[in-house]
């Protein structure tokens, strides 16, 4: 069942089109992310759904109710949403308890019910003892949880999160990711999550919509986007990758022959093959295998190790292949050193137009 439906959403600021007639939907109990670089329109989309911006066209349905279209524009306070802002937006003049209970007080709930709900929410988030603290007495992580608690207290139709973890340090961010996921599974509330951090989006989401210049390029689960990106931009944006110029020599049903740096190799046929001869070979660091120089096989290229980085759980090399440096991830026991010549074997690649 679709909890949220967005159709042909359009938002302009003067001459600039921030959101260009996008369509997507969010299912019940789904963690849905809008992912893209700064200025792609993801925050604007979120704000339109929240009712904090007035779109110029399209329609929005939340929980089966039409909240926006040509004749309708239900104000934000009537849409039954929860929202966590990037700076948490916790009211400094209210205690933690007062902050979290605010939506319930607005909804004129009975005070014993309010107390039960707020206590339960605070316990769930691990801030049960902080009820009478003021925001300035809390750490960043705690403030984050208060903001979350406030938005969950009224059991909203949809929880909106606008880059909520970007103000936290790395360790805390990782912890909060897990917590967010847990809370979502426990409450069943669908989440619309906006971020520019692709790692975060992949880790948390059931589905991701990648946005660029106001449009959605691809909308699918993380694995599909990772393995079958629809174009070069999506491929580069998600995960890590490097690319090398090449020339397509021959196409076959299962494989393609290309020339890289004067050497000819055969690679498995990727989902898309560009029409022109001049192409770009793109590959993820974990899909590259390094073999000792002595093993001469004709499906590999020759490269030279230029940079060696020990990352703890794996080793990252930069290998020179022609004019390019490609990024390779190898097992932490990999034996190569800077300056070594190696054979490079691509296990999986993409081909894009150059």
């Amino acid at each position, binding site marked *: 069942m679709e909890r949220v439906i967005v159709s042909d959403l359009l938002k302009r600021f003067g001459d600039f089109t921030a959101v260009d007639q996008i369509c997507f939907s969010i299912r019940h109990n789904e963690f849905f992310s809008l992912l893209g670089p700064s200025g792609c329109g993801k925050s604007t989309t979120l704000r339109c759904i*929240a*009712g*904090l911006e*007035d*779109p*110029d*066209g399209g329609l929005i349905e939340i929980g089966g109710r039409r909240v926006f279209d*040509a*004749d*309708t*524009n*239900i*104000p*934000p*306070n*009537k*849409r039954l*949403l*929860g*929202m966590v*802002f*990037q*700076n948490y*937006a916790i*009211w*400094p*003049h209210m205690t933690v308890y007062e902050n979290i209970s*605010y*939506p319930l007080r*607005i*909804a004129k709930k009975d005070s014993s019910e309010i107390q039960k709900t707020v206590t339960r929410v605070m316990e769930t988030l691990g801030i049960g003892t902080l009820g009478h603290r003021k925001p300035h007495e809390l750490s960043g992580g705690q403030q984050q949880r208060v*903001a979350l608690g*406030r*938005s969950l207290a*009224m059991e909203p139709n949809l929880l*909106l999160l606008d880059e909520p973890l970007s103000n936290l340090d790395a360790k805390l961010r990782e912890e909060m990711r897990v917590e967010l996921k847990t809370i979502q599974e426990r409450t069943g509330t669908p989440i619309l999550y906006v971020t520019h951090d692709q790692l975060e989006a992949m880790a948390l989401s059931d589905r991701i919509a990648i946005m660029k210049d106001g449009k959605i390029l691809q909308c699918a689960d993380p694995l599909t986007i990772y393995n079958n990106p629809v174009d070069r931009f999506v491929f580069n944006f998600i995960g890590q990758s490097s690319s090398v110029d090449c020339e397509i020599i021959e196409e076959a049903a299962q494989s393609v022959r290309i020339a890289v740096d004067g050497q000819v190799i055969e690679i498995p046929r990727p989902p898309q093959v560009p029409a022109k001869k001049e192409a770009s070979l793109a590959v993820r660091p974990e899909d590259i295998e390094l073999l000792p120089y002595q093993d001469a096989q004709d499906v590999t290229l020759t490269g030279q190790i230029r940079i060696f980085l020990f990352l703890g759980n794996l080793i990252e090399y930069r290998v020179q292949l022609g004019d390019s440096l490609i990024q390779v991830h190898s097992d932490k026991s990999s034996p190569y050193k800077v300056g070594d010549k190696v054979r490079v074997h691509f296990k999986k690649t993409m081909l894009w137009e150059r």
Partner: protein
Amino acid sequence: MNAAARKTTGLFSALFDYPKYALMVLLSAFVLYFIAYPLVQILLQSVFVNGKFSLALHQEVFSRADNFAAVKNSLIVAGASTVFATLFGTIIAFIVVRTDIPFKPAVKFLFLLPFAIPPLFAAMGWVQLIGPVGYVTRSVQNLFSISSVPWNIYSQEGIIFVMAVTMYPFVFLIVSGALQRMDSSLEEVARISGSSNFQIMRHITLPLVKTAILAGAVLAFIAAIDNFGVPAVLGMRIRYYVLTTMIYESLSIPNIPLATAMSMLLVVLAFVAIYAMRVVEGEAKQYAVIGGKSIRPSVMRLGPARPFVILFIAVTLFFFVILPILSLFLTSFIKYFGAPIAWENFSFDNYERVLRMRNTVRAIANSLLLAPMAATILIVVASLISYLNVKAKIWGASKLDTLGMVPYALPGSVIGVAALLAWMRPPIGPSLYGTIWILLAAYLMRYMAFGLRSTRATLQQIHDSLEESAMTHGASRLRTIKDITFPLLKPGIISGWILIFLPAFRELTVSILIWSSGSETIGVLTFLMQDAGQPQRAAVLASLVMPIILILYTVTELMGGSKSK
């Protein structure tokens, strides 16, 4: 906006749109009537003589010798006092912010005290100290067995001196602010490269705070040409006039057209000064080093010079800040001016006499009526305008804000004359001339900018997301204002109120031009007493008022500290 027919079904739009626009109409009417109308009036009247466009008035200003002298004197006095004020203000700013003297918060507070005290009171205090029969004068005469001292406070130099001593806080405040916010790493690099403290000061710090120094100097200059009290007390009796006192004189003839022309001249001077500052600021933008990541400015250790510097600070504080205040109190208690300072010559007689006078009670009552009224009206209007401007982001509201800020740049005398011209025969309503209400109208014009500035600043600090999160979680716009915006705005409203009340309460420059019998204020009465040769009565009035001023000033400082005025 979406041109498609959009039925506003939500409470948000319906409840807010309608009153929002009605509010804009009311606020616009207020601003247009109390601010735009008088300004337009004075502008028109200065260039239209008998219904024809003419610059005859302005010619007269420059052709008659005494008028022209007034212009010249204004420039000399303001210029010279600004130079001294800037020198002194900059030096103590350096010492207070950048060296290791003790008790910095107290020292800073005391150096800024002249902000709270009307320059009129300072002039009175200095007359009592170094005037012909002043305490210091007599002590020096006795000490050195001379019959007359080599100085005379009733002179151009006297005016320059008292102005410098009253205006330096402008420079001190801005320069110390800039020094505080400066990125200390710039100096640290110089230190590592081998520079001594003094060299760092000269080659690095000073050039970088040049803009701040200039900005402070411009503010001091504007305050100096704007001032009435000091040149009135020290200059009028020797027939030394500046623009403000000349305007006063011409209004008492009455020669309103001349006053109008001279007011415009004052305006031109003020605008030139402001323009100069903008140019300087623009050039200095490329140096934007202030506001770096480093928090604390580096403090210079004074070493063996320390006791001398501390002595210097203590002496200047005592002489320039404390002594004039003390002398006012002293004079209010002493039996007759000129009496030797001994216990038996102190009494409350003066106080009894003054408080029993009808016009004293009336003046105090008037000030206590006008100042709170002006403050309350303005704070309410300013809050509304600022909310519509900053939060609801209505285009018209930002225009109202700009318009309301205009009188801030105008000298007080100009506002006085504008008020006269506007409300002697207003288009709507009765003439306010001769009543107390013309003073209120003038105060509304004068202090609108104060209200706008503090409410605007406070609202800007309340991040949009605080309101948005309330609205997302169920609160209507009005509810949000009540629960979220207003509680957070309250401290700003309170300090904004005090910031209007304080100057309005002790105001002189505007009030002296438009008062009439029965509508005297404290400032006016104090001046009249001093001018009539009754320094003790004047001192009593000043001494009664000063504790109130000082307490309120301290409260504001404790609440928010002095942001740059």
